[in-house]
């Protein structure tokens, strides 16, 4: 990876540049095979997170590969991240665990279970809801956001 | 292989003043910088109680009461972020560079600055008296 892009073709490097990042929505049923494909292509798991939307929730798995992006790079673009996104219903959301391919994913999956109530089957290390022991179970699950003012 | 690598440092420290300060007997007074964020001060005389500071405060530490002409701050909630100082239209808030001194009492869980005396109503402007006609000196 070049440390200073200033010398390339005389274009001064952008200040505070924006990365190219791609999001791909996939059905839950294809999640494991897609993740297996990412693993075989050498992508590393950056993080996994859940977002609650109005009608459903989405779980995003973000991957990164050094210097590569699925979006074709040009002089102004940077190495990007690729996100696989699955949509889950609000009630009884379930996911298979990606631990067979990425062992460190157990932390993200336990966190999703503790905070959002998503059931993840087959985690490598399962804390059974006690990763974050909060007074209120699944504290991030709220009917409506409570805007303070 | 090195076994006495710290000896030079030890010798130097032996013959120089300590790096620590006997706090709280000796405060950092002369060395606190101008920009240090200590606590919020207010010049209550020019405050117009517009509540811009209370709206901007992220921790809701400021409570402004316009009818009572009161401006309260909960020192223990204030995180000295300087947002209120920047937004005040009258520039009556300022950031002092001394910390709030530690306290052992909590008055109803709020460390409240005693309300300042209410603003004196401005005296009505006196109509300008015409200047006395100049008397010429001498005849």
């Amino acid at each position, binding site marked *: 990876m*070049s*440390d*200073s*892009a200033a010398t390339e073709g005389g274009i001064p490097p*952008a*200040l*505070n*540049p*924006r*990365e190219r*990042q791609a999001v791909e929505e996939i059905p839950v049923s294809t999640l494991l095979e897609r993740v297996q494909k990412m693993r075989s292509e050498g992508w*590393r*798991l*950056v*993080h996994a*997170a859940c*977002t*609650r*939307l109005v009608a459903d929730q989405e779980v995003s798995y*973000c991957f990164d590969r*050094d210097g590569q992006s699925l979006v074709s790079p040009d002089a102004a673009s*940077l*190495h990007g*991240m690729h996100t696989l996104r699955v949509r889950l219903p609000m009630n009884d959301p379930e996911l298979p665990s990606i631990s067979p391919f*990425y*062992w*460190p994913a157990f*932390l993200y999956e336990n966190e999703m279970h503790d905070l959002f109530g998503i059931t993840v089957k*087959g*985690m*490598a*290390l*399962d*804390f*059974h809801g*006690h*990763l*974050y022991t909060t007074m209120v179970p699944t*504290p*991030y699950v*709220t009917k409506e*956001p*409570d*805007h*303070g003012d | *292989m*090195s*076994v006495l*690598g710290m000896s*030079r*440092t030890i010798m130097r420290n032996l013959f120089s003043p300590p*790096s620590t300060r006997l706090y709280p007997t000796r405060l950092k007074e002369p*060395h606190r*910088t101008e*920009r*240090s964020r200590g606590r919020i001060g207010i010049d209550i005389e020019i405050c117009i109680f517009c509540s811009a500071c209370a709206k901007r405060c*992220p921790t809701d530490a400021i409570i402004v009461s316009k009818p009572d002409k009161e401006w309260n701050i909960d020192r223990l909630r204030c995180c*000295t972020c*300087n947002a209120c100082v920047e937004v005040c239209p009258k520039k009556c808030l300022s*950031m002092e560079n001394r910390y709030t001194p530690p306290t052992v009492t909590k008055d109803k869980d709020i460390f409240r600055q005693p309300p300042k005396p209410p603003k004196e109503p401005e005296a009505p402007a006196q109509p300008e008296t015409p200047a006395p006609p100049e008397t010429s000196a001498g005849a």
Partner: protein
Amino acid sequence: MGTSRPDPTGAAVTGGHAPDAALRPAPTRTVIPFGPQHPVLPEPIHLDLVLEDEKVVEAIPKIGYVHRGFEKLVEKMDFNELVYVSDRICGICAFIHSMAYCQGVEALMSVEVPPRAVFLRTIWSELARLQSHLLWLGLMADAFGFESLFMQSFRIREKIVDMLEEMTGGRIILGVCRVGGVRRDVADDALADIVRRVKDLGGEMRRLAEVFLHDDSVRHRLDGIGVLSREQAAELGCVGPMMRASGISRDTRTLGYAAYGYVDFAPVVETSGDSYARCSVRIRELFQSIDIIAQAASKIPGGEVGVKVSGYPDGEYHSRCEQPRGEVIHYVKGDGTRYLQRYRVRTPTFANVPALVKILQGCELADVPVLVLTIDPCISCTER
């Protein structure tokens, strides 16, 4: 899971990928809880260490002692106020969190940050990195019992933190970043003075580095302990100096965010993968930071330091920065209203905890504090 063990937290932990040895009943096994309160830990983390005599066979981590639910604050505070929250996620690496957040929101709103502000952010990031690495060096020295070295590290660190206070008003939580720029400017001559003082401190840091890298007693405690091979580091998803000490040359700063495209530097890499290599990487990064500060201060342009921001964030973006501990991701998602829809922080220690579990397997009990510190745990970041 074969052996039954006392479970004070009430968490029934299954080891789906536990090594085979754990399934055979072994009479000489004990489980020792490490943490959450331990003299060597800066922040609480709990480890259940399964020991056979004095060797650690398995380690089960448990975090969650300082979970504050920061990400839920997105519902109560609008996107401008969240800067104060992001500043306070961590008590060591605070500035880079707020910078990463501001970068994320600025990318969503397509805000052009003035160049001077970008350079100032870079300089402050590097100063924050200096003080964080010095803090780690001090804690590491304390972990293997070299307390006077710990004091010397903190003595140097105090001067850096004083410089930060002169420039911004805060020592660690600088409170100086905002969406659209920075809130304070630093005069050019003050900046030149800071650079000169940092370079002088480089001499003192060199003396400190000599003790860390060459002293016999230190090397006895660090050499060959907690080896993480290159393949393991890649598989476990390590970030930061953990990964660079195992030979993977990756540094998020090379992506060129902020003003890093304008400064020349290369990732600091070591190949042996043990604790000594991690210590060495962080020490070399100290000098690299001093160099970057000098370069950035020489290239800093004039102009304003902040622009007014109007409108609301819409869209999503992963903002990446290189913290002293590794790569941090701030994921912001807005829906066009004043309040963000989601704010997610993936801190580097979160990615390094699985690596901690792996390097603890097979080590001696006395090496556990050193190994726990070697990942530079910032647990308050991890749990937010």
